[in-house]
């Protein structure tokens, strides 16, 4: 196993549909299981959203996972920069999506991994690349 070279901001919906093992989004869990082949970036917006989806015990388990795998996961409490958020909103992102895109830029993410169709549709107008889990997996050396 080589050290990961790409930094991926994994959107909240992947963290949710993956553990749900939702058959409509089968590659969500595969992307999460492949963490370590890329570095997963977890910005404050994702953490705050997960807190509203997971209960206290699940959240503790989630933090424990992150803490025990610093080579694969980077938790960031760096808040989004207002000017950058606004620039993404000007490109057509909704506010929450704009915060995610801004965080990806600040954290030097190579890409955002998301199942969010509306977010994905703004793909041509954003400096940060957004890929579905299945597209992202193709970038891993042993899966292309």
């Amino acid at each position: 196993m080589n050290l990961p070279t790409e930094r991926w901001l994994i959107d909240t919906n992947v963290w949710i549909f993956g553990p749900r093992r939702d058959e409509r989004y089968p590659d969500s869990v595969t992307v999460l299981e492949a963490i370590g082949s890329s570095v997963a970036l977890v910005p404050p917006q994702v953490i705050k959203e997960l807190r509203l989806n997971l209960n206290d015990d699940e959240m503790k388990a989630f933090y424990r996972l992150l803490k025990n795998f610093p080579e694969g996961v980077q938790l960031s409490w760096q808040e989004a920069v207002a000017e950058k958020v606004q620039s993404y909103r000007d490109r057509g992102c909704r506010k929450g999506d704009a915060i995610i895109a801004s965080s990806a830029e600040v954290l030097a993410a190579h890409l955002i991994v998301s199942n969010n169709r509306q977010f994905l549709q703004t793909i041509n107008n954003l400096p940060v690349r957004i890929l579905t889990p299945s597209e992202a997996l193709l970038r891993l050396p042993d899966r292309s």
Partner: protein
Amino acid sequence: MQSLDDLAQTIIALPQADQETLINKVAQLNFKKGLSDLADNYRRRLASENRLEIPADEVWAELQRIREEVAKRESSN
């Protein structure tokens, strides 16, 4: 099965790069196992709340609502 001491001896006999690869691999497998345990607990809770089989569009609506709620809260701080 090897004892832990034997296993440690086997590992330290490996080249440094292989040892690092092995340690990273163990960390990744532990992460994967922890993720699987978290998923099992999450699914069990959703099932007990009759929320595991709700349509994807309802999950999406909830995720979008939460996203904008968190974003709105941030801008009011």
